[in-house]
């Protein structure tokens, strides 16, 4: 029974309106401001950017929009390099996460039913502990006189310590380590739903296990693969802490470039332009993610 009336209407407006207002004010408007300030010029004042519009006597006098910040980004090899390096590091890390995470998710999905819960819990648990401190632990493992080198030297596998910390290698390890749970969880969710009778049917028809995997398991876990890949790729592109702590001087990623421009150069318009460029790079994967999420929810309802 639905009671339609002014009172109910008012309540509905409140339920939608409060979170809507919050997100508009503290999410949408700030993002629009980033776009606006990316078009304005930097100045040494507070706030450190020129106003885009100038008003006098209530009328708009000048509009000072310029693409100078974006032109600067494209002309500076540092930023172009950061752009491609971010995409490369995030992309390769996603693939490595998939290669490690897929067998893990499959292993958990095929474990005895009463063991799946604890196994899954063990994947989630590191995610709840401090991300920063786990990345810091890798500094102790990877540094020149760190644990890994000590172990390899003691075993006689290497004569000189490997230089891993402050190189791209350490960034890959850090990103794969930090985002692996985000890959395993959606993969597990789609693999767990897989009907085992399909695999039995494939086996009955004489398909060897690898063929059954390619023909049945892999295609049916595609939503999990895409969701997991997005959950790793998108945050990895904008990652700041991992390249800063584990990476070297030549590891330039967009998130780190943005912070450096913002904090050291204090050029807010240039930082905003970098943010816009980063969003542009992420627009396609984000749209894909949203589309897929919508489709999965559609499946769930039917």
């Amino acid at each position, binding site marked *: 029974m639905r009671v339609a009336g002014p009172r109910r209407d008012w309540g509905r407006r409140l339920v939608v309106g409060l979170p809507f207002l*919050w997100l508009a004010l503290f*999410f949408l408007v*700030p993002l629009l401001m980033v776009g606006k300030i990316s078009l304005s010029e930097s100045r040494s004042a507070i706030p450190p950017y020129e106003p885009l519009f100038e008003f006098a006597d209530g009328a708009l006098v000048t509009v000072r929009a310029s693409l100078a910040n974006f032109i600067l980004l494209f002309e500076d090899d540092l930023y172009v390099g950061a752009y491609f390096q971010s995409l490369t590091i995030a992309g390769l890390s996603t693939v490595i996460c998939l290669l490690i995470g897929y067998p893990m998710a499959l292993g958990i999905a095929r474990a005895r039913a009463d063991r799946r*819960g604890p196994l899954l819990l063990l994947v989630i648990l590191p995610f709840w502990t401090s991300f920063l*401190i786990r990345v810091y632990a890798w500094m*102790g493992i990877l540094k020149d006189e760190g644990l890994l080198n*000590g172990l390899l030297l003691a075993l006689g596998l290497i004569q000189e310590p490997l230089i891993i910390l402050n190189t791209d290698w350490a960034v890959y390890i850090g990103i794969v*380590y930090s985002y692996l749970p985000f890959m395993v969880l959606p993969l597990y969710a789609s693999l767990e739903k897989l009907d085992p009778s399909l695999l039995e049917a494939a086996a009955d028809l004489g398909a060897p296990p690898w063929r059954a995997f390619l023909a049945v398991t892999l295609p049916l876990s595609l939503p999990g693969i895409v969701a997991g890949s997005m959950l790793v790729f998108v945050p990895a592109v904008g990652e700041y802490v991992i390249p800063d702590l584990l990476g070297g001087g030549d590891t330039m990623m967009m998130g780190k470039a943005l912070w450096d421009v913002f904090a050291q150069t204090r050029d807010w318009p240039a930082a905003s332009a970098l*943010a816009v460029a980063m969003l542009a790079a992420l627009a396609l994967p984000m749209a894909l993610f949203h589309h897929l999420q919508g489709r999965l929810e559609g499946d769930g309802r039917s």
Partner: protein
Amino acid sequence: MKRSAFLMSALAFGYAFLYAPIVLLVTWSFNESRVANIWGGFSTKWYGELWDNSEFLDAAWLSLQVAATSATAALGLGTLAALALVRFGRFHGRGLFSGLLAAPLVMPEVILGLALLLLFVALEDLIGWPDGRGFSTIVIAHTTVGLAYATVVIRSRLAQMDRSLEEAAMDLGARPVKVFLVITLPVIAPSLAAAWLLAFTLSLDDVVVASFVTGPGASTLPIEVFSAVRLGVSPQVNALGTLIVAVVAVIIVTGWWLAGRRAR
């Protein structure tokens, strides 16, 4: 189903990879020696130093306050948002609403931090609020992120919920607010607890967004840890990490055990 040796070794490798740094961190925290590779004997001296480190303690207290406040705000707003998405059917602006709720989940932290800072600076210029940046600006930023995550958790529980009890109560003449308080709320309570904990943890763990929107004098624990770690190895951070791991493990395992007992 037969378990293949390949999958078993993949699992073993995966868990070793996930847990090696954590196990090492715990071991180092009890190491008398400052050098990680040399075992100087069992010692709790780093815990003592941590306890005497007033910067860490003050920052931890600020972080707990920020996390509790923002998680509570995110829970309230997230519950409303989830109700709107699951129960209101189509309404004007629904597409924009659900887009705004999903976007913070995939928004790079540096962009969110920069965007909110620009807003706060412009607002202060315009209306004089927020007067300087610190506790309140970090709470607002963390509420925005927490709200998006809380909505996902609560929304999925609401969508699964059996509605017949609610309908029965409505038929008996209960007002929507009463139905929500007496029937819906108790049913979705576990998801509310999970949502609050998630928002709380995210806030407690955030260094990037907080670094952007904080001002002088308001350093959260991750900000302090980050600056200590950038300067090099600090055994106190090992001790701090061990404490965090211990607390999280106790909470998660207890929660899982309680959920399992309820299910049975």
